[in-house]
């Protein structure tokens, strides 16, 4: 089944949880399988939380723009914040020995690992992620 969800939420983690729950419940009904559900949940949560915390710096006046587009067996998710953007290539590697025990900074790595495709716009305030359904 094809469906599309577009939502603009305030920079509020609980709002993000509700939206993520809705997406996961929908995919669960469409038999996406546990591993794919986990991957989508992880990547979407990290993208939205990064937008709230780092992009919008928890400014409740700033919004997070989310689009989830499910087309047959392909799920495309876009998350945009209203911040200045960042360069993902310049982030410290959380798997370096010096960083591995630090209790933060894994979000971008996890999004990359759990998604089939990931890209950022030139400003660095929008991430686009793709996950394909197996089988």
């Amino acid at each position, binding site marked *: 089944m094809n469906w599309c969800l577009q939502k603009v939420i305030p920079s509020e983690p*609980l709002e993000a949880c*509700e939206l993520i729950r809705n997406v996961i419940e929908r995919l669960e009904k469409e038999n996406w399988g546990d*591993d794919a559900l986990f991957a989508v949940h*992880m990547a979407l*949560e990290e993208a939205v939380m990064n937008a709230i915390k780092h992009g919008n710096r928890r400014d409740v006046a700033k919004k997070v723009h989310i689009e989830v587009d499910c087309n047959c067996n392909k799920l495309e998710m876009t998350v945009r914040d209203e911040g200045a953007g960042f360069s993902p290539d310049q982030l410290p590697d959380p798997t370096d020995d010096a960083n591995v025990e*630090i*209790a933060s900074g894994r979000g971008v790595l996890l999004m990359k*690992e759990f998604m089939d495709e990931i890209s950022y716009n030139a400003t660095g305030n929008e991430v686009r992620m793709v996950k394909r359904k197996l089988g």
Partner: protein
Amino acid sequence: MAEQRFYRLARTHLTNRLVNSMSKYECIKLETRGNTKIVKFVDERVMDPERIELLGKELLSLGIEEENTRVVLDFSHVRFFSSAAINKLIVMEKRLRARGGKVGLCQMNNAVRDLFGFTQLDIIFRIHESEQDAIDALQE
């Protein structure tokens, strides 16, 4: 929608409170096997920011003041574990290790196992197939 969320959260919290009515914990179930504490997570999806904060406090209360505390974290019930929850495990592990304690993890599904692998946190946390394997490894 907000009302639905409120009732769902209220129902979850009430159920957890009933289940854990004899315990001081809401987010974990605690058992003791010999000198090892076995911790099971109550939530299938460890994602709610408020629950994760509470989970962090409960984990930090597990013998943090004692020496050589051994803890096994059993993931058999867990379907999703957010990176914010992982951060709580890292803090707990550091505190326990500073007092000679050890932590072992067990019974993870493939996706949770991948989460620890991708981040190379499986170097810090030893991951075991079964609860007994984890208990045995902590005696070494």
